[in-house]
């Protein structure tokens, strides 16, 4: 119950102001189609340099939580999900809005988001210390396999093609080796002076997540958002709360599904929302109402996508393995302040760890309170032409990348990686495993070298890295995740081929 001692720190004036700003800003950014939560958090990182580590994390955590919830606004009022996590919300939320129940749908979505989110953060609070303690038993070989596991799980589960997902992870791991070698001081892959210091993670994150979005907006050409905001009538929050309480099954299924999916690295909010929606429909006595503007659909989807936020940080804060691309960006936010997740975080920086986690709990309540007031404004922002959004994101990316080390080299790296990633994405590659490779590469290499030295002095490399219960378990999970994803890919391809044949 250590977290209780740090609750007061969340309410220090600057921390609370950042939490409030991050929440409101996140709600607006989340409602803007094309601005994903990951990109929003990546663009915010440069603003945290001048803050204390804990304050920076509060801002990033608030933005993460509220962008996921804010995406429901455009999903309900514009039929455009603000983020992939809100796709399931669109199915019933927009129908409700068209039937004149827009305010009710928004209220239900924010209330369900808060309920799911609070449960998810409580899970984070109680699971994290246990796992962090367990992580103390990890040696270099286990940490090496954990880093590889982080890349392969996201590479295989988060990509449409397993091979291209794993290849993206390899590209990320290779990019992480650019620069001077830590032990020998040798130059590695320095093709340009800008790469002398290696690839700066923050500049890379901004480039990989923001620039492809900018180019995607350019590729759409001159056009308006094409979406009309549905006006909302007043609706009592009390009635919405009663409605939520009358639907405990949808809320329960959404919350539990989201929490479980959040704990699995690489699966993400989009899946959480859709699986929860599907399961709630299966167990509902009003199946026929789903897709027609049923409140249970909104409750299940929103409870799930916010419930996954807290648990998705469990592997990050305990084992340094980000469970999602946004968690990877948060890891970047921790590393720039010289803080490494794991037992070190809870032993040496408990104030940072617990204040951050507590702020996410308070942030859920603020998000629910402000969500309804900001919804109207957020929906208007979502109508801003893509040309304006693209130009704003591009300028923010350039300034953000430059401000990391006041270096034009970082801006060039950001732009090159971003443009390259846009084309790679068009060919079926994915940014998430590449980012994971880039972030986990140094951890994997350091433990590979350290483990190699221990192995040379003891049992030999093969025995050190490939034997032992935990090593075998981790290798088995790596193999299983790849095999499962490959099987799913083959199955879906066969299914598609059959469907095509029938058509």
């Amino acid at each position, binding site marked *: 119950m250590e977290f209780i001692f740090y609750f007061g720190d969340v309410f220090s004036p600057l921390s609370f102001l950042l939490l409030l700003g991050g929440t409101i800003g996140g709600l607006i950014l989340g409602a803007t189609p094309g601005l994903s939560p990951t990109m929003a958090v990546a663009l915010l990182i440069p603003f945290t340099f001048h803050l204390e580590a804990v304050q920076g994390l509060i801002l990033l955590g608030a933005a993460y939580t509220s962008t996921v919830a804010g995406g429901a606004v455009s999903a309900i009022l514009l039929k455009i999900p603000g983020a992939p996590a809100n796709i399931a919300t669109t199915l019933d939320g927009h129908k409700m809005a068209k039937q004149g129940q827009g305010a009710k749908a928004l209220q239900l979505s924010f209330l369900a988001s808060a309920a799911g989110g609070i449960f998810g953060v409580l899970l984070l609070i109680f699971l994290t210390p246990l796992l962090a303690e367990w992580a103390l038993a990890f040696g270099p070989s286990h940490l090496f396999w954990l880093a590889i596991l982080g890349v392969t799980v996201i590479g295989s589960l988060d990509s449409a093609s397993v*091979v291209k997902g794993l290849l993206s992870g*390899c590209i990320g791991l290779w990019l992480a080796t650019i620069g001077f070698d830590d032990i020998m001081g040798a130059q590695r892959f320095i093709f340009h002076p800008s790469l002398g210091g290696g690839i700066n993670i923050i500049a890379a994150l901004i480039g990989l997540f923001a620039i492809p979005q900018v180019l995607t907006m350019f590729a759409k050409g*001159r*056009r308006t958002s094409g979406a009309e905001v549905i006006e909302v009538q007043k609706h009592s929050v009390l009635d919405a709360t009663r409605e939520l309480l009358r639907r405990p099954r949808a809320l329960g299924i959404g919350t539990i599904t989201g929490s479980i999916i959040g704990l699995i690295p690489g699966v993400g909010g989009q899946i959480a929302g859709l699986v929860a929606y599907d399961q709630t429909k299966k167990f509902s006595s009003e199946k026929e109402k789903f897709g027609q503007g049923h409140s249970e659909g909104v409750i299940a989807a929103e409870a799930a996508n916010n419930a996954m936020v807290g648990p998705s940080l469990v592997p990050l804060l305990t084992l340094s393995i980000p469970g999602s691309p946004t968690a990877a960006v948060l890891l970047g936010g921790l590393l720039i302040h010289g803080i490494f997740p794991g037992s070190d975080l809870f032993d040496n920086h408990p104030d940072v760890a617990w204040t951050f986690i507590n702020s996410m709990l308070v942030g859920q309540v603020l998000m629910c309170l402000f969500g309804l007031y900001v919804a109207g404004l957020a929906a208007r922002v979502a109508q801003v032409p893509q040309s304006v959004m693209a130009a704003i994101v591009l300028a923010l990316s*350039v300034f953000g990348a*430059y401000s990391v080390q*006041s270096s034009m080299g970082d801006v060039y790296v950001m*732009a090159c990686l971003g443009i390259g990633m846009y084309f*790679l994405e068009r060919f079926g590659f994915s940014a998430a495993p590449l980012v994971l490779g880039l972030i986990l590469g140094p951890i994997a290499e350091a433990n590979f070298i350290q483990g190699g030295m221990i192995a040379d002095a003891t049992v030999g490399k093969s025995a050190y890295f490939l034997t032992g219960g935990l090593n075998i378990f981790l290798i088995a999970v790596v193999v299983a995740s790849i095999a499962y994803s490959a099987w799913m890919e083959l199955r879906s391809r066969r299914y598609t081929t059959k469907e095509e044949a029938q058509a």
Partner: protein
Amino acid sequence: MNRSQHILGSGLVFAVGISVAWISYTQQPSEAFLFPRLIASVFAVLAGWTFGKAVMGFSKVGSGVSRTMFLNMVPGLAVMLAYVFWAAKALGFYTATAIGFFILLSLYDPAPHSEGKSWVRRALITAVFVAVMYGLFAKLLSVYTPREILF
């Protein structure tokens, strides 16, 4: 997406993979390239597999870049490249941002070019945005950016 785009994309990745593997196995000191060698081997094998699939016409994932998309994107990409690789340093960040922002708005804003009102609106949005960026980065965060002309 047509096969040639798949071949071109995966071919480039394969070329990078082979280059990385070649450098990793030939550069000295070899101890410094121990981990890159491990990564590069997997990288080259997976890239070869992807390239092989593309050549055989089995690549299915990825929708490529259509002609319309490419033509839509080219002007914006050109402005982006000029802004990042030349103007930001040569003209100064804020001047380059103002010019780049205004050009991008003019290129992609759906409002008609024939109306004077649209141009005034674009100029106003640009001015407000650059003022906000200046306040945020120069004043609030004290980031010193290259300032060659104007500010």
